[in-house]
């Protein structure tokens, strides 16, 4: 076979460093062709190779008896009993969403859906974590509108409910918004599909939409910083077609019910390149592709363009040799392309032909085995000092509460989730707006609890505490709805790893996550890394976003945060020292942004207390000893109880602070490992807590009225609070019209 014609030493190394280009020469023993260079470039991009993060990701705990498959596949797989598995992953689409928010966000949803159904799972829920710039920044409103419309436009059409999420605003995201999408699917535990190819001679089959020139080199774009010309990268953003995706889901699941498939992988980042290289590579085989057979949207596409296109809604699979007709019949029903474009071989090489010419002929194993891996220099963030409550002004609690509940980070996000179909499929037990979403598992009495969370300002101030806190908060959110937390997926969003202080944030966050996952018995089963989230040298606040999944054995035992009847005791679980460092109270009311300039330490995370308090709360919910539950996080205690009042349409009276904590620190401190619960039998609950060694105290009671009072003094009426809390985002978005 002819060797592909080498290009001259290219001026543009397509994002590879000189050293990396040297590796290419060594592997091939010659200069690469244009197509070969393109393959190396995307496979060794940060996005596909994890070259800066691998060393650290390996330190995360990934194995527990209930983990069927951890990181390394398209998504993580967890055993949930009854012969069922939950399959889930979160992935970022930050760079495309900033450039073209609607399509960037829409294809982010499409991509993560494919990662999950490619493993044989029916997608049952979507979530998303969004971070935008300062609301006053001229681009922010446009990005919010476009991203939300894109997520809805895609998710609503494919018929997967979008059940939860979080949205933050901060100036560090002015030039790099974060769009992280998570999909959770359900599959029979003994019918999971993997990407490892087997059987030389077996047909390699292309499924789904046609290939066009969109998204070429998207993975490389996602591995570079933005500059002033980033808008010019719009042609590297893919365009989504949720209708085709819906058909692809149904067709793939129908085919997966037969015995035709050997291996399957979606064409995500780096498209046909990564899917073919990864499938053959995992099987230790070669693969030969005839690109003339690839269904194309436009004529005249070169081998380079076809291999690097990131056109959406496409899958690649290896079939058993005599099953091509089975697949073709199913795909005909859905009017989707299903074309054999190549064969597995024993050569160990990727061979790509176009117009009868060999355009690439390169060994597959070295692409992963000799991929660059960096141990980048890092510096730990300087230690911050705790913030003494006495040094923080004590504002009027009523005014502070109203201001906090209407601040961008705490204001109601119903303007966002009201544009998502969170009900389709008819199994959404807990809707957006609570601690965690709960989705019933059809045909079983069980339910899954789902949540995404992260507190970037904590991570910036103390990466290790912040990483631990992000894990612990999702664990708490799942616990608060009565679920047993099972496992997480992570989405690591950071700046340029070539800067030691950014790498230090990454290393610190991983250390904190590792500690929390270990202590809480809550392993990592999948994840994604997004680096270079910087514009003109300005890095984002680090955001290791955690997606948590928990199990309810009896879904009817779940509880929500809404205050139920009058005259119930409100009980605080967990200790309160009044920790104001990095709190929203300080940021929103004391006139200084706590990050990155301010120097206070975020609340410490006591993992033993988290475990003890959470296990106690979960057991109390299972015993039906509490009527409502909410975790205490952003904004502190008073905000948590106010959120419960809004959800229940009912007022409360809180007692004054503990004697040893100043009132403003008591009400607004963000101490961790705390929950607010309500009960009609406080004595029994306190007794159980005391037996379990868990701090618990009655801090107030629910009222028959709709007033929020502190020691009998009116703070605010529920109506006024609701207007402030629910009014901010719609009013903000309306200003753009």
């Amino acid at each position, binding site marked *: 076979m002819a060797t592909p014609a080498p290009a001259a030493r290219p001026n543009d190394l397509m994002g590879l460093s000189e050293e990396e280009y040297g590796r290419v020469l060594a592997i091939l023993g010659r200069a690469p062709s244009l197509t070969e260079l393109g393959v190396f470039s995307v496979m060794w991009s940060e996005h596909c190779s994890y070259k800066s993060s691998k060393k650290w990701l390996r330190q995360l705990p990934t194995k527990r008896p209930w983990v069927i498959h951890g990181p390394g596949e398209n998504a993580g797989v967890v055993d949930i009993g009854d012969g069922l598995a939950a399959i889930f992953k979160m992935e970022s689409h930050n760079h495309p969403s900033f450039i073209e928010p609607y399509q960037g966000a829409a294809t982010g949803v499409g991509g993560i859906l494919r990662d999950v159904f490619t493993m044989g799972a029916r997608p049952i829920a979507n979530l998303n974590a969004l971070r935008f710039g300062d609301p006053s920044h001229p681009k922010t409103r446009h990005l919010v509108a476009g991203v939300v419309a894109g997520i809805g436009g895609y998710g609503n059409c494919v018929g997967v409910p979008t059940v939860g999420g979080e949205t933050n605003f901060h100036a560090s995201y002015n030039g790099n918004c974060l769009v992280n999408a998570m999909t959770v699917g359900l599959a029979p535990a003994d019918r999971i599909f993997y990407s490892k190819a087997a059987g030389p001679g077996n047909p390699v089959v292309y499924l789904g939409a046609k290939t066009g020139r969109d998204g070429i080199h998207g993975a490389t774009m996602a591995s570079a910083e933005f500059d002033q010309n980033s808008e010019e990268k719009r042609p590297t953003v893919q365009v989504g077609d*949720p*209708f085709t995706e819906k058909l692809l889901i149904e067709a793939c699941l129908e085919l997966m019910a037969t015995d035709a498939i050997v291996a399957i992988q979606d064409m995500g980042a780096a498209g046909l390149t990564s899917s073919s290289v990864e499938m053959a590579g995992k099987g230790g085989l070669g693969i030969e592709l005839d690109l003339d057979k690839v269904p194309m949207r436009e004529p005249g596409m070169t081998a380079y363009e076809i291999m690097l296109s990131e056109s959406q809604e496409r899958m690649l699979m290896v079939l058993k040799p005599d099953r091509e007709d089975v697949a073709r019949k199913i795909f005909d*029903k859905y009017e989707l392309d299903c074309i054999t474009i190549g064969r597995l071989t024993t050569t160990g090489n990727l061979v790509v032909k176009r117009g009868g010419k060999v355009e690439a002929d390169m060994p597959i194993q070295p692409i992963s085995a000799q991929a660059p891996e960096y141990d980048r220099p890092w510096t730990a963030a300087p230690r911050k000092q705790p913030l003494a409550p006495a040094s923080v002004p004590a504002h009027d609690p009523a005014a502070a509460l109203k201001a906090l509940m209407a601040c961008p980070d705490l204001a109601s996000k119903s303007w966002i989730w009201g544009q998502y179909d969170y*009900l*389709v499929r008819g199994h959404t037990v807990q809707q957006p707006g609570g601690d965690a979403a709960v989705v019933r598992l059809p045909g079983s009495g069980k339910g899954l609890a789902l949540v995404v969370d992260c507190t970037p300002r904590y991570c910036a101030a103390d990466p290790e505490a912040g990483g631990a806190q992000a894990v612990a908060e999702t664990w708490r959110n799942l616990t608060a709805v009565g679920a047993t937390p099972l496992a997480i997926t992570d989405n690591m969003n950071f700046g340029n790893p070539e800067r030691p202080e950014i790498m230090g944030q990454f290393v610190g966050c991983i250390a904190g996550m590792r500690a929390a996952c270990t202590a809480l018995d809550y392993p990592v089963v999948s994840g994604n890394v997004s680096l270079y989230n910087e514009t003109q040298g300005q890095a984002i606040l680090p955001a290791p976003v955690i997606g948590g999944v928990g199990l309810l054995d009896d*879904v009817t035992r779940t509880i929500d945060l809404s205050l139920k009847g009058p005259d119930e005791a409100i009980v605080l679980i967990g200790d309160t020292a009044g920790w104001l460092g990095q709190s929203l109270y300080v940021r929103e009311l004391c006139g200084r942004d706590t990050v990155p300039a301010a120097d206070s330490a975020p609340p410490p995370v006591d993992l033993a207390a988290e475990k003890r308090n959470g296990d106690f709360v979960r057991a109390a919910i299972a015993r039906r000893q509490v009527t409502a539950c909410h975790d205490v996080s952003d904004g502190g205690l008073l905000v948590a109880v106010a959120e419960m009042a809004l959800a229940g349409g009912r007022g409360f009276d809180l007692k004054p602070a503990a004697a040893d904590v100043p009132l403003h620190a008591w009400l607004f401190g963000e101490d961790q490992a705390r929950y607010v619960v309500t009960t009609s039998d406080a004595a029994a609950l306190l007794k159980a807590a005391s037996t379990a060694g868990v701090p618990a105290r009655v801090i107030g009671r629910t009222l028959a009225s709709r007033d929020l009072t502190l020691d009998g003094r009116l703070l605010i009426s529920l109506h006024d609070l609701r207007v402030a809390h629910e009014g901010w985002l719609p009013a903000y978005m309306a200003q753009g019209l």
Partner: protein
Amino acid sequence: MKSAVIVFPGSNRETDVADAIERASGHRPIMVWHRDSELPDVDLIVLPGGFSYGDYLRTGAIAARAPIMQEVVRRADRGTAVLGICNGFQILCESGLLPGILLRNASLKFVCRYVGLKVETSQSLFTHRYQAGEVLSVPVAHGDGNYFADPATLDRLESEGRVAFRYCSMQGDLTPEANPNGSARNIAGIFNPTKNVLGLMPHPENATDELLGSISGKALFDGLVDSLA
């Protein structure tokens, strides 16, 4: 009661409505793919919610021209009960079985929320288990639910008792705030002249289970079983 759910490419609430029918009748509906030429002999035909053909061109427009729809129209004309929910309502309007059209929501945004729904008449095989004037809590989830018809058509629908449901506050008031999409006269669902065809935008099939927040929609399916069993 024997029933069939027509599944178009892009339908996505076919299992929701099939589950609701099965809970009410004890029988699973037959799922009929849009390219199937045969429509089995059934008492009830359902056009489910979703995004048939991706909502490309115009919502419901392509589905209304699918071969299977000719048979649906024929059966409807012969008196078979036909229920179109959300995208199914849009298809019924596009196929001419119901008058008017569903436009983009007045907000220009997709809307998913529970709405108050006033039962306008109990005089139909779909609504006889309700009291006229009763207020239901049922979710909507659509981007194109803004019902539009010329005033003469609206007057005729009202005078002939063919308005099935209107959006209302939970107190039963027909306010603009209670109208999630800008529909003319707060109309949420209508009948054909013989009242064997009902199209509505809200999702009664998602309000048939206490655990999920509302059972307001259950009486519609129970009522169909009474009428058609």
